[in-house]
């Protein structure tokens, strides 16, 4: 196709028309030769953000590695919905060992490939936020500090969804889960807790850390591709809304992800060797209420009385992110 300058146009969702992009920057999913690494027919819920994120991420990684890819998976929704015996949705070599060891299993795979002189085969480890920020954190940190040649992808839906929506250390303040009930003086998850895994990953000084959401799938694909240009430990943290756990309509997954970014609650950025190198600016800033209201996990902030105090604290968190990462303002 002849060179054609990109003509951005508003679609109401701020997406850029894929067909107007040069072929090499079009979505992997728009290519008939996409690998469908996580194939159709799996058992994910309608509107599952994790299934969407994984499909885009792994297909992008497949393209980036010329299909030379192995994946290790933590226990969790992604593992359960993709491999109910005797079926598997994975078109790639894939292993599930335990809940807390995906990063270490991936380290072992990478070591074996190195010993066998097959370093063209690349290794991904993946898990949910529980498997990443809680039970798998020790193995993940070990993989980071050794700078093992693994891309770890965390699909963050902010709670243990597979076991029935219990709190993880990635659950946001005020969110109701099965173990942070919407009762008492401070209903939902407590303020002042939780882990920021992308920052912790950066503190290990690993070559590449990035965040992404399923609202910007081109950006997600580009980050997977970028991650595969590095050797050593890399970390990609993808926000994947969960209609079941968050209590939003199953057709609102993309919108929720976009609002998480546009409020400033979920900063989208890239970092190399511990330094932020690029941030995705907020295009049209929205108050956190717009993000919180459609989600039943935050319903107690609006009914029976509007908890302006708690909403203000959440807004304060978003504002701090905006200031810290420079999410507003001119072009990066």
């Amino acid at each position, binding site marked *: 196709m002849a060179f054609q300058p990109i003509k951005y146009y508003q679609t109401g969702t701020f997406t850029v028309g894929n067909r107007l992009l040069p072929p090499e920057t079009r979505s992997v999913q728009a290519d008939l030769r996409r690998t469908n690494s996580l194939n159709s027919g799996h058992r994910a819920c309608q509107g599952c953000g994790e299934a969407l994120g994984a499909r885009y991420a792994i297909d992008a990684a497949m393209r980036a590695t010329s299909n030379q890819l192995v994946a290790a998976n933590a226990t969790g929704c992604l593992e359960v919905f993709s491999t109910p015996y005797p079926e598997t949705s994975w078109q790639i070599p894939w292993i599930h060992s335990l809940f807390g060891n995906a990063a270490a299993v991936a380290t072992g795979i990478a070591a074996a490939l190195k010993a*066998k002189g097959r370093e063209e085969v690349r290794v991904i480890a993946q898990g949910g936020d529980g498997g990443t920020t809680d039970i798998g954190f020790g193995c993940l940190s070990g993989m980071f500090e050794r700078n093992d040649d693994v891309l770890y992808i965390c699909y963050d839906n902010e709670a243990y969804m597979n076991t029935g929506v219990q709190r993880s250390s990635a659950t946001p303040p005020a969110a109701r889960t099965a173990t942070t009930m919407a009762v008492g003086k401070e209903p939902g998850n407590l303020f002042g807790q939780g882990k920021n895994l992308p920052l912790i990953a950066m503190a290990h000084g690993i070559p590449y850390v990035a965040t992404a959401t399923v609202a910007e799938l081109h950006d997600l694909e580009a980050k997977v591709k970028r991650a595969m240009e590095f050797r050593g430990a890399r970390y990609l943290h993808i926000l994947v809304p969960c209609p079941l756990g968050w209590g939003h309509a199953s057709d609102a997954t993309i919108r929720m992800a976009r609002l998480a970014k546009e409020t400033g609650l979920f900063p989208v950025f890239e970092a190399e060797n511990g330094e932020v190198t690029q941030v995705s600016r907020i295009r049209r800033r929205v108050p956190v209420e717009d993000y919180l209201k459609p989600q039943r996990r935050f319903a107690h902030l609006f009914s029976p009385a509007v908890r302006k105090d708690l909403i203000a604290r959440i807004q304060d968190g978003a504002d701090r992110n905006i200031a810290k990462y420079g999410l507003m303002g001119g072009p990066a």
Partner: protein
Amino acid sequence: MLKQTEGSHAVAEAVALCRPEVICAYPISPQTHIVEALGEIVKSGALAPCEFINVESEFAAMSVAIGASAAGARTYTATASQGLLFMAEALFNASGLGLPIVMTVANRAIGAPINIWNDHNDSMSQRDCGWIQLFAETNQEALDLHIQAFRLAEELSLPVMVCMDGFILTHAYERVDVPSQSQVDGYLPKFDPRQVLDPREPVSIGAMVGPEAFTEVRYLAHAKQMQVLELIPGWAAEFRRAFGRDAGGLVHPYAIEDAETVVVALGSVLGTVKDTVDEMRARGARIGVLGVTCFRPWPHAAVRSMLGGAKRVVVLEKSLAVGLGGIVSTNVRTSLSDEAHQRGTPVHTVIAGLGGRAITKASLERAFAAAMRDELDPTTFLDLDAPLVERVLLREREVRRSGPIAENVLKLRR
């Protein structure tokens, strides 16, 4: 080649001769010298290609081993005690997935109270995790069992633990015969995995299995272990032809032909037991020994036939099933023949050597002689300081806040 060396170094040399491709190491006494020696061999470039990975925990060590083995690499690690327990979840996973990892367990007690010395409660606690468990009597046997372990593991695609007594073997300098590389290469074929993660032939390993097939998968694990019982004797014979010495096998009888009393034991204590038995036999006692090398799978038929003529069995074990008594003896009881059951052949449990307490010939002889007089209790704690225990129990009855148990035991010693 004969050399005077530490048990740990002998094992490290044997493992290196097996050409592992991935070794993961986490320090815990008393296995440290093994992985230290291997680390040096790998770093020197003498063992290549091989990746030596310093991991952050035993759970990670076994998890890295799982990944490496699933990617088709010959994989080795070593641990002990708390470390073995910390990897417990991954142990079941490795065997459930059918990955032929070989691991040394430098047997050590489990806390609390924390104790770094030898007993068998660590590997015994994992006896049902699906790993083959082999127990070495000497450093030479520890060396030899590792070479056999890789062959066994890879033939059946099952993980193998080689258990050797911490400090007593790992830190003892003894003469060992270290085989040549060509001898080991001749005995141990190249690793040809049954399953491998490879983009050329993608497979999903570790899928979720529900009630419709879980029983069958578990049955296969059991059936495969039972195959080991048929394979081990032949491989031990082949080992003897290749290396010119005995090692491995299921069980090792000693002076058992005319024995009315048979002592069953595992590991390095067999040396002391045999010396004791020799002295008792010199005075006319009809006593013999059955050493168990292969504890998992349990060599049911071999034990049954070896104990067929015994009037009584004394199981000397360095492990304790709290609330039951012996672990090895519980296994031995399942192997008594119907006739032995009808005769009421007693199987005594003698718990000894916990947390590294020395097992002396004098104490053994007292216990064995009591058994032969039919005066030995069904369960005996060898050299137990019974008055001390009584004082502790009395204090606990009298004082509600009696305080930490270990402190009381130390305080009330006289």
